[in-house]
Each structure stands twice: as structure tokens, then as C-alpha cells.
């Protein structure tokens, strides 16, 4: 009787419990498998193309085939040949010049703007901030076309200077974002202390504000540089025959007969980005800044 009661009471509960943990474990396993495999696939999709391009650039054959049948530096040799690749060199030089100027101007303008807009709430500052950030979400292609029409109506011919102006507009938001994030970490008490001790505005800016926000500015400048170097939609409309840009030239090399030098250019670009990224990581903690 007592035994039966014990069994009758406990056994179902015991079994139920067992079934429940089993189900728990199965669902736990399913969770791990589903999330793990999707994440694995995602990471593979992210990384594989970069690795594949690097390996392809060492191919000895005249067509693009993966895996390459051997290793050779012939495409890099051809790419660095000053005569046979002179067009690519000029395009790369143009892109570099535009990127440096666009970065410098965008950094200066956006840093000033972010100092002005920091900790300011109200309709106008919010509206201005939205305006400054809008190139990030607005179709850049539409802006590129608009800029082409605008400059044509003003009577300008395509030139590097016009591309620089176009790039400044579209890369400024990158600087604004990282610098504003640093500005929000600046303790206003520091500024008040500095002012109450008799420091002028400029002195306070140089000695208090700037040291705090410098890493944010540097990270933003780096992003602006990369964004300008990569820019297609604005360069597409503003580049002329005498102001060829690297991404546009690479597009041309992929279009007709696939030119394997594209792989070599890609290899060089990936290497440059890798080095710059490691340097910026060391200097300003780039990855953390991008995440936050």
C-alpha cells in the first residue's frame, strides 16, 4: 500500500521529469546545431571570398580558375609594370589623391560640426544632424547623378576637384559618427573647470576636448579615407576620361574580357587594408569603435 502510494506518486513525476530533461536536452542540441551551422555558414560567406581572391591573384593561367593550378607572380609583375599598366597606375594615383583630400576636408568640417552639435537637443540641432547623416541611407547613385547635373549646369567639366567635393559630402557622416560618439564621452565638468580657471575657448579645445576625442577623429578619418577610395556611385558620374578612378577602372577591367590583373589589384588593396586595419587597431582600437 505504502509502496504503491510511493510509486504511484513519484513514478509519473519521475518519468515526466525525465522526459522533460530529455526534451530540454534535445531542444538545447537543436539550438546549438541550428545557430552554430547558420553562424558557421555566415562566417564562411564573409571570409571565403577574401581568401579566394588572394589565392586567385597568384594564378599562372590566363583565365580565372579556382583553385589556381600553381603559384606565380606574373599578374603582379604585369600590374607593377609602369608601361603596360600605366592607366591603372594613373587611376590609382587619382583615387589616392581624392581620398586624401576628401578625408582631410571631411575630417576638419565634420569634427567642427560634431563639437557644435554635441549634447544639443532641440528641433534644429536634431534636424541638422539628420541632414548630415542622410548620405548614409540615401541612394548615393541619385546623389551622384544630381551632382553631375549641378556641376554641368554651373559650367564645370568633369575633374578631380569635382570628385573631391562629391566625396567630401558622402564621407563626412563617417567622421561625424565616430567623433560624436567620443564627444558624448567628454565630461562637461572638465570644460567648465577649464573655463573657470580662465582658459579661453580655443585653449580648452586644444588641451581638453581634442585629446579626448582624438581617437574618435582618427577612426572616423580612416573610415572616410576607405569610403572615398572605394566610392563608386559618385565617381561613376563625376569621373571623366582625364580623371579616371580606380574602382571605375577595375569595373571596366571586369566588364569586357575579364582582365586577371583585377585579381592582382584586389590582392594589393586587401593587403593595404589589412595593414592599415592592424595599425588603426593598435592606435585607436578601431574594431571596438566601429562596434560602439
Amino acid at each position, binding site marked *: 500500500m505504502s509502496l504503491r502510494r510511493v510509486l504511484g506518486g513519484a513514478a509519473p513525476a519521475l518519468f515526466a521529469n525525465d522526459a522533460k530533461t530529455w526534451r530540454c536536452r534535445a531542444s538545447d542540441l537543436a539550438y546549438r546545431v541550428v545557430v552554430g551551422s*547558420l553562424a558557421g555558414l555566415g562566417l564562411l560567406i564573409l*571570409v571565403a571570398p*577574401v581568401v579566394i581572391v588572394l589565392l586567385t591573384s597568384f594564378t599562372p593561367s590566363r583565365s580565372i580558375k579556382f583553385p589556381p593550378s600553381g603559384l606565380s607572380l606574373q599578374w603582379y609583375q604585369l600590374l607593377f609594370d609602369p608601361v603596360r599598366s600605366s592607366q591603372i597606375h594613373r587611376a590609382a594615383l587619382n583615387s589616392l589623391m581624392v581620398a586624401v583630400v576628401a578625408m582631410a576636408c571631411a575630417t576638419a*568640417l565634420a569634427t567642427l560640426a560634431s563639437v557644435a*552639435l554635441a549634447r544639443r537637443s532641440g528641433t534644429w540641432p536634431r534636424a541638422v544632424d539628420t541632414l548630415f547623416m542622410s548620405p548614409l541611407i540615401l541612394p548615393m547613385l541619385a*546623389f551622384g547623378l544630381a551632382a553631375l547635373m549641378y556641376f554641368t549646369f554651373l559650367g564645370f567639366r568633369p575633374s578631380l576637384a569635382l570628385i573631391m567635393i562629391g566625396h567630401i559630402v558622402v564621407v563626412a557622416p563617417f567622421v561625424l559618427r565616430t567623433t560624436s560618439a567620443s564627444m558624448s564621452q567628454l565630461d562637461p565638468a572638465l570644460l567648465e573647470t577649464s*573655463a573657470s580657471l580662465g582658459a579661453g575657448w580655443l585653449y580648452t579645445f586644444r588641451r581638453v576636448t581634442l585629446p579626448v576625442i582624438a581617437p574618435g577623429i582618427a577612426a572616423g578619418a580612416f573610415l572616410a579615407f576607405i569610403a572615398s577610395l572605394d566610392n563608386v556611385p559618385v565617381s*561613376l558620374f563625376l569621373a571623366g576620361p582625364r580623371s579616371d578612378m580606380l574602382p571605375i577602372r*577595375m569595373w571596366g577591367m571586369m566588364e569586357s574580357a575579364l582582365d586577371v590583373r583585377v585579381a592582382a589589384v584586389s590582392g594589393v588593396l586587401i593587403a593595404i587594408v589589412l595593414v592599415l586595419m592592424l595599425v588603426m587597431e593598435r592606435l585607436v582600437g578601431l574594431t571596438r569603435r*566601429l562596434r560602439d
Partner: protein
Amino acid sequence: MRRPRLAEWQLALPLALAYAAFFLVPLVLLIAVSAFDDEKITIVGFAQWRKFLGDPFTWKVIVDTVKLGCFTVVATALVAYPIALVYLGAGPRWQRAILFVVILPLLTSVVVRTFAWIVILGREGVINQAVLWLGLAPAPLRLLQTEHGLVIALTQIEMPLLLLPLLSVMSRLDPSLRDASAGLGATRWRTLFRVTLPLSLPGLVAGCMLVFASSTTAFISQFVIGGNRLVYLPLLIWQQSLVVYNWPLAAAAALTLLVSVGLGVAAISALGRRSRAYAV
């Protein structure tokens, strides 16, 4: 106190002026140009718009462009969200590794990434070599110039844009909430759908908006991988402006793209807000 504040406010002026002169005025001009009937831009009228929007082909292109954006958003979110979950559960070393892997493609040129997908999806590409070697198909599959291929490529090209805002929100979540959920007997799935997902929704929505906006306007990727068999609005804009030199029509197409992207982004944002209301 009044004077330095005034001076500080004026520091935004240089950028504001630059934006007014080189961003707002050109966009207004774009609207103005679309309201001309002829290619020489002399006759004001809306015949161009009527012709553009009355053409069924235009609507097919608009629908295809929006569809491409939607497919890319879904495909990207499907693999990016699990990456964020793995990131959340990983130790600091793995977190740094994942972050590196996410940012490296972001910083490599879009043209390079597009080129990579030609190598992968081409007739002699990685996937076809594998398929033939495994004997899964008798002949190379056609992956370039198909919508599937384009969506797969755009998934990689746009994924960092979704992951960065998502990881940013995820890393600020309070881990004790997940522990509490598990401690109260919730399965991992339940914790995911009732705790983590609702709390990380702002990051997911922000990322999806960026992916939608970027994939619908990714001209080079669309053109090089999709070929000219798949026509999207950016191709139309490029053809009309730089090949045919019909600027009013190009302006109309550009404004259509602008409105489509704007509506799509607003829809994603509204969807995010609604699902948030349901989840809580």
C-alpha cells in the same frame, strides 16, 4: 556663458554650408530636371513622368529592385543574427576574432568583393568545380546572371552593414537577463525569442534598413553579377544618364529609386516597431 555657446553653434556652419551648396541644391535640381519633357531640358512638363510611370516595364523594374532588397535583407539577417548570437556567447578572444572577420570585408572595396563572387559563381568558379567534382550536376550550373547568385553575393557584400549595429546593441545587453531566463526554466529557444530577440530588435532593424538601402543601390554588384539581363533601377539610371543622355528620364528614375528606398526603409522601421510592441 552665452557667447561661447553661440560660437560653438557656429562651428557647424562650414559643414552645413557645404551640404547646402553641394548636397541639397543638387537634389532640388534633380527634382527640377525630372519635370522637363525633352532631352535638351527646355520644355517644362510631366509627359516624361507619365511615360515613365505608365510603362509596365518600369513597374517590373521597381518591383524587382524592391524584391532584391527584401531577399537580401532576409538572407543577410538569417545568417548574421546567428553570428551575433555566437558572438554574444563567445569569450573576449573569439569576440575580437569575429569582429575582425566582420570588419575586414567591410573595408575591402565593393568592387573587389564583387570580383570575388565572379570567381566563386562563374562557369569555372569554385561552386561549379565543387559541384562537378562531387558529381551533383552533369554540367556547370548557371549562377552568374541569376537572381539567386546576386542575392548570395549581396549577402556577403552587405552583411557587415547589418552586423555592426546588431553587435553594438547585443554587446550592451545585460547578461543576467539571459541567466534569469535560463534559471527560470526557459529553453534556449524561449530565451532567444522572448528575451534576446526583443531586446536586440533595434540593432537588427537598423542593420536591415542599411542593408535594404545599400543592396537596392549597389550598381556595380548588380550590373557585374546580374548582367544586363537583370534590370534594376540603378542600371536604368546609369543607362539613361550616361549612355542615352536622357537626363529628365534619368532624374525621374533616380527619384523613383529614392522614393522606393525611402518607403522600404520606413516599412522596415515600422515593422520593427510593431513587432516590438507584440514581443513586450
